[in-house]
Every structure is written in C-alpha cells, then in structure tokens.
C-alpha cells in the first residue's frame, strides 16, 4: 500500500513540476460578493482618447472582467467638468480617462488639472520600465515617478502686475509635501522598492524646495529599510539620460515631476506605452502615464493609429486597485506578449498597425 502511494505521490510531484511553468495565482482569497461587477466612470476625452478607451472597453469585454463603464463625454474646451461627471466619479471612486486637450494660452484652465484639484488627487504616478522586445537606447530601466499633483508651480495663481510684467506664484506647503512623501514611501514599502530619490532645486529655491526636502527627510526616518537620497533636478535629467538604472522611486514637486516623468517615459519607450494614474485619499483616476494633455495629431486620429498600450496597462493597474489581481495579470501578460513578438506595433513604436489590430492581437493572446 505504501509503495503504491509512493509512486502515486511521485507521479503527482512530476505532474505539478511540469505545470509549474504556468503560474497560477491561487493566494488571492476574495470576500464573498467581491466578484459582482463594479462601476467605473469612463471619460473618452479628445483626440486619440476615444480610440484608446474603446480599445480598453473591447478588451475588458473579451476578458469578462467584472467591470462596467459609465461613459461621459467631456471635451477639453469646456470651461468646467460637468457636475454629473463629478457625481459619477465620486460615487464610483474609480475613473478611467483618455486625454483632455487644453487650448494653449486660451484663458481656459486645463480640465486635467481641475479634475485633480477637485477630487484632491494629490499623487500622480508613472511607471516607466523597459518592455521586453521593444528596443530602446537604455537598458534596465524601472523607474516610478511619484509627483505632487495639486500645488507647486501649477497652482494657477498668475496675474499681470503692470503691462508687460507677469507674476506666477509657486506655492509649497508642508501639508502637501508631507502627504506626497508619505505616499511615496508607502508605495515603495508595499511594492518592495529599495530606494526613494527626492528631486529638487533647493540650491536656488531655498525656502520652497527646502520645505519639500524637509518633509521628505522626516518621512524617510520612519522607513529605515528604504534608502533615501536627494538629487538636483538638472543633474537628475543628465543622470537619467546617462545612467537610468540608478533610479528606483522618485518623488518630486509638480513641475519637476512633469519633466522627469516625461524624460523617464521617453527613455523607456515613449508615452505611448507607459501606464500611470492619479490617486487621492478617496478617488483614483487612471490615464495614460505621461503627458496627459497630449492628445495626438489629427493624422493619427484619422488613420486610427493611436497606441492603446499605455491605457491598457493603466487599466491593468486599475484592476489591481479594484482588487481583481488575476484579471490584471492576464491583461498585462497578453499586452507584454504582443509587444515582445513585435508583429503588431503602432507608428510611435516603429510599426504600421492600427489601434484595432493591436487590440485584436491582445484579445487573441488572453488566456
């Protein structure tokens, strides 16, 4: 009897070894009722926005993800985000959005910024990493840029002192700096990241960026397991271009974060593939990682050649945020496989495919 059970056990071990290549995440134990569909507000936006959000809708349907979208039409030229949209986001707590185009110098404040301020989405996160199969000039890039989203240079407080002289206020408060620093270290802690770098220009703006650095240093003391260092923003950009592998998580005030995130996205493959989102205490809005105001050229919209990868990866982040990890994993794996194969690529990655072809390829690769 024991000999037979021994061979049975051996067979079992052999079989499980063979199926180990396909990882099965069995550790997520949901609460009863977690699988009921969640509502997510969807804002297609301008330019390439509707194309890429449509891509996400198609993929979600193919996966039978427990999500349904409440779509609202918002244009960048509107003066305010409509009240019903805000209501919906407040109810659902999660939103997925394409880009909203801001008219340049037109006197209309950016709707992207408005949304962030009203919902108090104080942290903007962009994850820049090398996708296997996508050749770039830099290797080993895996940077997360966490950027303060509400104050700093983008406070929007400008006025004309006398004709020909304009002032703009950059406001830094301890409250906001502290909470962004806390978020950055918490993110590093929960995602097993080893280093947090604060980006600043405190040698010139001693009081403003000095206050930001002070807050970062205080929070760093509470996380002794995470290395903390500081770097001046111009040196930071130079290092990003020369040796990006030295950076892990970066926490920055508003303006520098914008530049650093776009630079990091550029070296890792472009804004067409980097996921990101904005998060606050109560709400989260997921969108294309960097350059949310860039809605692409008209030619791309006409020919349907927008790159949906960024928004697809952002929606995977959203699925994890909503605690549907296996759907997120499936989506990410499918997208990464499509990229690494290299057959279906849109124009910004050097290929000729349309958005729809990429979406079909991703759906085909879903398990």
């Amino acid at each position, binding site marked *: 009897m024991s000999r037979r059970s021994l061979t049975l056990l051996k067979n079992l071990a052999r079989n499980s070894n063979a199926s180990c290549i396909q990882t099965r995440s069995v550790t997520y134990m949901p609460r009863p009722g977690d699988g009921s569909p969640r509502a997510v507000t969807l804002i297609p936006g301008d330019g390439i926005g509707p194309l890429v959000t449509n891509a996400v809708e198609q993929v979600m349907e193919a996966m039978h993800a427990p999500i349904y979208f409440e779509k609202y039409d918002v244009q960048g030229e509107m003066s305010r985000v409509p009240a019903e949209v805000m209501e919906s986001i407040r109810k659902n707590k999660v939103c997925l959005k394409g880009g909203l185009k*801001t008219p*340049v*110098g037109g*006197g209309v*404040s*950016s709707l992207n910024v408005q949304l962030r301020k009203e919902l108090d989405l104080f942290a903007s996160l962009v994850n820049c990493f090398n996708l296997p199969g996508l050749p770039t*000039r*830099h290797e080993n890039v895996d940077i997360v840029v966490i950027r303060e989203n509400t104050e700093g*240079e*983008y406070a*929007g407080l*400008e*006025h*004309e002192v006398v*004709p*020909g*002289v*304009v*002032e*703009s*206020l*950059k*406001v*830094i*408060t*301890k*409250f906001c700096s502290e909470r962004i620093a806390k978020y950055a270290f918490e993110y590093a802690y929960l995602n097993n990241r080893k280093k947090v770098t604060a980006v600043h*220009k405190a040698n*010139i*703006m*001693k*009081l*403003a960026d*000095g*206050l930001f650095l002070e807050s970062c240093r205080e929070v760093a003391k509470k996380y002794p397991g995470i290395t903390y260092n500081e770097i001046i*923003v*111009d*040196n930071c*950009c*130079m*290092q*990003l*271009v*020369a040796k990006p592998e030295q950076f892990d998580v970066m926490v920055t005030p508003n*303006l*520098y974060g*914008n*530049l650093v*995130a*776009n*630079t990091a*996205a*550029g*070296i890792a493959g*472009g*804004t067409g593939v980097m996921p990101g989102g904005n998060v606050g205490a109560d709400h989260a809005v997921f969108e294309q990682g*960097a*350059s949310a*105001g*860039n809605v692409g050229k008209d030619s791309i919209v006409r020919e349907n050649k927008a790159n949906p990868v960024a928004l697809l990866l952002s929606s995977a982040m959203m699925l994890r945020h909503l605690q549907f990890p296996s759907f997120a994993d499936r989506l990410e794996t499918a997208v990464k496989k499509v990229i690494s194969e290299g057959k279906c690529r849109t124009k910004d990655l050097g290929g000729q495919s349309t958005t729809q072809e990429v979406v079909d390829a991703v759906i085909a690769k879903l398990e």
Partner: protein
Amino acid sequence: TLRSVLTEEETFTVLQNISDSNSFVAASLWCFEEMTMAAATFAKRLIGSRSSSTTATSVARAFCSSTTPITATMFPGDGIGPEIAESVKQVFTTAGVPINWEEHYVSAEIDPRTQSFLTWESLESVRRNKVGLKGPMATPIGKGHRSLNLTLRKELNLYANVRPCYSLPGYKTRYDDVNLITIRENTEGEYSGLEHQVVRGVVESLKIITRQASLRVAEYAFHYAKTHGRERVSAIHKANIMQKTDGLFLKCCREVAEKYPEITYEEVVIDNCCMMLVKNPALFDVLVMPNLYGDIISDLCAGLVGGLGLTPSCNIGEDGVALAEAVHGSAPDIAGKNLANPTALLLSGVMMLRHLKLNEQAEQIHSAIINTIAEGKYRTADLGGSSTTTDFTKAILTHSSIFLPSSMKSFSPKEKLVTAFMGGFTSQLVKEISIEECVKEAGCYASNVVLQRFGCI
C-alpha cells in the same frame, strides 16, 4: 629648432636660397615662436614689395602686428581651473590668435563694492574688454555674500546663456545625431530668488516674466540662428498650464519670429520636448526658453552628448559683452594632478573667438580638438583614457598642420619640410612626405643640416 643652430642673418639667407616665394619666407618667419623685431621688419619689407600677391597679404594679416591684439579677461577659477586655462593659452598662442589675456582671480575676502569675492577690478575689466573666458569657480560656503555666478550675471547684465550641444565624433554615447543649441533666458523667471514664508509651513516663490527680457532673449536667439545658418527656432513653454507667464514669453517670441520670415518658428510644450529629446534629438535645432526650463533642458542636452566636461557655454550681456565659461565644477579632488579635461574650456574659447568674428582660427582650433578626440589615442580619464592634461594639449597642438596659414597649404614638399623644421612642428608635416622624398628634395645646406639634426639622414 634651426634658429638655435644658425644666426638670424644666416637663417634669412638660407630661406631665400630655398625658395623665391616671398610668402614662403614670410610664413617661415611666422613659425618662429618669438617674432623678433628684425624678423618682423624683414617680413614687412618683403610683403610690402609684393603687395599685389594675395597669399602674401593673407600671411601678413595672420602674423604681422597690423592686427591689433584683442585684450580679453580670463578667470582661471579654482580647482582644475588654472591647469585648463594654461592649456587654452597654449593652444591659442600656437594658433596665432591675437589675444592678450588679462587674468583675474577670485580674492579671498569680500569686496564691499561688489558684495562678493569678485573684485570691482575684475568686473571693470570684463566691461572694458567686452569679452572674457571663465573657468570653474567654487562658491565659498558661508552667508552674507552673493554667489559668484549670480554676481557676474547681475553686474554684467548677462541675459542669455547659449549652449551648443553636438555629438563629438569619436566619443560614442547612446546618441549620435545631436546637433542643437539651447538658448536660455538668464535673469528672471523662476530664479528671481523671491521667496517668502507666508505662514508656518506655507512658502511662496515668485516667477516673474517680463516683456523686455523675453524680447531680448528671443531677439538674440533669432539673430544667432541667422548668423550661424540655423533653420529652425523652437520656443519651449508650458503655456497650457501657466497661461499668463509662459503666454507672455510666447507672444514675445512670435513677435520676433515675424521679423525673420526665413527661419521656421515652432512652439513645443516642455513635456513633449523632453520626450522628443530623449527619443530623437535630431528633431531640434535652436531652442529658446525661460530660465528654469532652460536650466533643465540644457543639462539634459549636455547629458546626451557626454556630460558637462565636454560642453561649452557662453553668456551674452548687454552692449555685446560675451563671457564664455566652462560649466563643469572645479573638481577639487583632481586639482593639481594634471588629469583634468580641458575640452569644455577650449570649446568655450572657440565660441568666444566666433563671437569676436575670428572665424578662421576658431574653425582651426575646433577641428584640431574634434580630430584629437576622434582619433582616440589621447583621452583624459573622464573620457575613458589615460592621458594627462598636458599630453592632450600637445596632441591638439600636433594636429597643427591645420594651424598653418592657409597659403602654406600650397607649398611644395620641400618648402613644407623646411618650414616645419624651422618652426618646430615636426611630426604632422613630416608625416606627409616620406624620408626618401625629404632627402631627394633637400638639395641645399639648410636642409642637410636640418635633416641631420633631426636624425633623418
């Protein structure tokens, strides 16, 4: 050199025996490291008698004291500053650049007239000469004085910072096709230094943009593009968020763009600009931007081509003042060890020469530097080599066939050979003709002596 073997009279006789060409004689005399008064007079007499000869006049212009030498201020700086300044002086003298340097150093105490460590005399010198070259300066730590760079900027009213960034052939980075110029407004913007604490925990910092400063820097940008044959000027901004401030900057740029219809003008949002720079830097030509963006973008571009050790820079002030500077630090850890890389200061000196319209010498020195780096045999430690500063400088000097007046390029091999031995530039010229040809061509006393002396026969 030969002049240590023969007297001056004998040398002149010898030269005249070798060639009837007066320009050859004059050029050979130029090769002497120290022009004596007699040699100068002799050369002038020769040139005067054949004044229709264009080669003669061009040679005369190159070395005769009919060109008044220009006085320029030099701040060697701290740390590695003096070594690289020495290198610059050597290269400039060898190339025949008519500049007399007025050196000024940062003093050890604060001058009350300028409230900083730079003396009033130094600033007056730059104002008078209108042109200067500055090495790296380390601001002493302490309170109660302005930083040195800030002092220079405010006192000399340096409103534009120009930084050309181009890939150096021979020094491989991840980017090969960078060829752009960043022009940054240097006086206002986010670096006005106006900050205050409103209440505890709330700090405000003012960013100021004025029409006057924006117009000034836009004018300079387009003027620079036109004089250097550039086709496109891009204004970098964030006017979709900072509508009034960057909007004013853009308005001024547009106004100036209308006056230069042959130059294409475009506006790029700064986040797009960053992304495009790291993906495809060949898309940009001339970039003009306010202070903060300029700081970040110009350092980013320096990173694309190899770092601050290779980047030249020039600050332009009112009344045509130009102060070229090396933007790297003073590197106190390698100071005095002859390991520093003088490339940044040399290239800044070239920018200074172009500003002075000494384009021929600027081009010669520039090519010599590029060729030395491209050759790859002599590189300082920061470029991955093991040469010392003096070795590197010598290597630039030996790319010195380029330093000959252009008339000499038409000389026969014999003439070139003797000229080379006369002046001491042996290696580069001698490489161009074989020793056998030397011996064949050498048919006179001087050449034989010279060839013997240099071990060729």
